[in-house]
Structures are given as C-alpha cells and as structure tokens.
C-alpha cells in the first residue's frame, strides 16, 4: 500500500539503525520522550527498541487522550447517560475507562443507553434517526479529534438539531508538554513530536520547546522507518550541536497545520480556565469548552453535571507513567491487579496507553531481562 510499504522497508530500517548506533558514539546517552500514545504503540508493536543502542532511552509521554481523562469526568458522563431519554454516544475505548462509579460499560449494563460511535457525525446522525431521544456525544481527544467535533457542532447548528449535544472534554497538547518541561529534575533530552495532532496545529507550534527549554523536537509519522528516522534526526541534532524543530512527517504535516481545522475549532470552542488531567493534576488553559453561540448544543449547559473530583486509586501510578517518571513495569499493580481485561488505571485501557503497549508487546522480554538481577 502506498504511503505504508515504503515506510516498513527492512533495509531502510537497518540503515537508520546503523546510523543511530554510529551517532551515539559521539553523543552518549540520549533520553527521548515520544509524546504520543500512537508512537508508544508503534514502538512496541514493531519492536523498535531492539534496533536501538542502549544509549537511546525511550520515555513515554502524556499523549493518550483516554489516559488523561480524570475519573470525575467519567462519572459526569455516567450522570448524563443515566438521565431519562438520553443516549450517550462515545468512542469505544472510553466505555471501559473506570470512574468513581464504574465505567460507562457498567452503566450500560445497569440500563443506561450508551452507544459506541466512530465519529461525532455518527452521533448527530443517530440524533436525526431517533428524534424522540436526546443524543449526547462524549467528546474527548487532542487537537486531532477536536476538528471532527467542531464540524459536527457546525452541522448541528445548520440543521437546527434540537436533540443533540456535546459533552466537551477536548484537551490541548502544549500545556502538558510545558508541565513536563518544568518538572524539577526532568530527565528528557529530546522529543518525538506527535504526528496527527501536528497535522492540525502545525510543526511551528513546538518552537517554544527549543527556544524556551533548550530541547529539540522532531515531528514524526508512525511507521517503523518514520520513527527510526525521527530518532536519527534527533540524535544528529545533538551530535551537530543543533537544537530546533524538524519535521519528519512532511507528507502530512505543514508548518502551519490545517488553518481550516484551526478556524473550525476556534469558532466552536474556547479554552477553559483550567482542567484536571488524570495523574498530572489541574493545568491552566489546557482544555476546550463549547463557545456561547453554540450553547444550545453544550451538554454542560443542558444537564446538571456533578463535577466532583475523584482521587485515583492509591495503587495506580498512571500519573508517573504519563509524565515519564517511571516505566509501566515499575508500577506495583502492572500486569497483576491491572491488566487490559480489568484495568485499574487508564494507561492500561487504551491500546495506546503505555501500560497496555508494554503488557501486549514487551512484558515477557522485560521479565526475562530482569530475572538475573532478581528485580
């Protein structure tokens, strides 16, 4: 398939691996955070760590929107779903995320009308097909997903949809990156920037990272050759004493992103004063809410939302995993009390959560490696 096969070419991957091995002779250890959960998943799915020298340490970042939704917002969604005459529509992974009162899947088992959709436009179509019900779309995601919600809000207004709303939980990529960069004792030297978020916001938006924090960024696509090339570009910057934003994903990402998508978001949504991120805490201006001209379709204005803050389970260390402070296997409940079938923390729910990626692709190898030292 075009745009896939050429980025899985083993010969190109081997050449890039050799280049990285040669470069680290000059640079020494380079700790690289891949911000995006899709990258984490791809790294383990394709076994890329095996192609890297020990000097390259990969640290997983906060870029999985399912993983950062706090338990209180799941409870809010359950409260909406349990309102009479309401159908709550959401993406599949969100249905399994545990809140303080269980998951949406469990609410469905108790009788709430919760349905899985692949697009907010599908939720609007559902509202059209079932005019006697109110369909509320539980919107989550970074700037990649916000444009779909924005287009749906525009269409709801064009149609004058009377039985549709959005429970908006869209989050922004810059605030958590700044929070990580301001962590005392930060152990990250360079960043692999998110690919598809960048198709919307553009690669230029990361210039604050080299300029204010002195770390290089390479925006990357998701195939094995893409990621190896991005890592080689970062290590090459270090070897040559450069520190800048580079774009490996030029086939999709432009420096200014997609202006039409940014306009659609700005027209329909605005920044909240603050928003709670699971495991990270409250970050100022880090999420979006529906703008006033679209108030008719804003679930937070239409429903009574509990809005309670729920503490994460004490044993769960998702916050430290999301900010790159520990590896998933260092959490005491990883793979025991917390598994993809029965997740305790959100990083184990989504296939792109760091814990789920480790569990699915890397756990056996990790255990073998650790056995000799008795860890």
């Amino acid at each position, binding site marked *: 398939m075009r745009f896939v096969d050429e980025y899985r070419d083993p010969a190109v991957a081997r050449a890039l691996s050799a280049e990285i091995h040669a470069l680290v002779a000059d640079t020494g250890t380079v700790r690289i955070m891949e911000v995006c959960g899709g990258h984490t998943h791809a790294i383990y799915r394709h076994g890329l760590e095996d192609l890297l020298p020990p000097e390259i340490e990969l640290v997983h970042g906060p870029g999985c929107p399912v993983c950062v939704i706090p338990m209180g917002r799941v409870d809010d969604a359950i409260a909406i779903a349990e309102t009479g005459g309401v159908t709550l529509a959401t993406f599949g*992974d969100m249905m399994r995320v545990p809140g303080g009162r269980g998951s949406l899947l469990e609410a469905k088992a108790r009788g709430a009308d919760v349905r899985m959709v692949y697009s907010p*436009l599908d939720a609007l179509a559902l509202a059209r097909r079932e005019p006697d019900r109110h369909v509320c779309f539980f919107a989550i995601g970074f700037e990649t997903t916000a*444009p779909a919600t924005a287009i749906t809000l525009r269409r709801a207004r064009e149609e004058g949809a009377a039985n549709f709303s959005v429970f908006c939980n869209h989050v922004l990529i810059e605030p958590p990156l700044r929070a990580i960069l301001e962590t005392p004792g930060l152990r990250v030297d360079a960043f692999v920037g998110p690919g598809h978020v960048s198709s919307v916001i553009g690669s230029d938006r990361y210039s604050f990272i080299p300029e204010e924090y002195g770390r290089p960024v390479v925006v990357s696509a998701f195939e094995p050759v893409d990621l190896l090339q991005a890592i080689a570009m970062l290590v090459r910057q270090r070897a040559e004493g450069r520190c800048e934003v580079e774009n490996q994903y030029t086939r999709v990402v432009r420096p200014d992103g997609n202006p039409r998508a940014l306009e659609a978001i700005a027209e329909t949504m605005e920044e909240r004063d603050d928003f709670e991120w699971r495991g990270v805490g409250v970050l100022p201006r880090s999420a979006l809410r529906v703008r006033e001209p679209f108030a008719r379709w804003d679930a937070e204005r239409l429903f009574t939302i509990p809005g309670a803050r729920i503490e994460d389970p004490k044993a769960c260390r998702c916050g430290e995993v999301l900010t790159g402070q520990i590896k998933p296997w260092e959490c005491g409940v990883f793979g025991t009390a917390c598994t993809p079938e029965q997740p305790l923390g959100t990083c184990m729910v989504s296939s792109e959560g760091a814990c789920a990626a480790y569990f699915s692709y890397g756990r056996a190898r990790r255990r073998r490696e650790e056995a000799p030292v008795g860890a």
Partner: protein
Amino acid sequence: MTADPTRCVTCGDEAVTARVVALRGGDAVIEVDGTRERVAIDLVPDARPGDTLLCHAGIALSRVEAAAR
C-alpha cells in the same frame, strides 16, 4: 473508521490514510482495506478522486503528499 482492535480510534494518532474513490453529497467516499466509507471533507474541500487523505473520526484532516525522504 474501520474497527481495528489493535488501534484506539479515540486518539487519532493511529488515524488512517485512505484513497478517495468518489465524491458524494459534499463528502468523499474513501476505500480502507477494501471497505468503502464516507468522510466529511469540510477541512480538505479540494479533495478529488485519486487523492490520499488522512482521515480520523469521520473527517479528512489533511491530504497526504509524496514527500522526499
């Protein structure tokens, strides 16, 4: 988008690239792994049959262009 149990539809960083096979009612009909779906092209309004689009959550986000490596 097409359900793939190894992918999280929510994230979009596993968004799919797909070829446009037709335009219909202001949307594009795309083909993904032999299955045809409709996506909104409000954000890529000049999409044409034969183009490859990056699609996520029912909309096209960007056109995929051949890039020099």
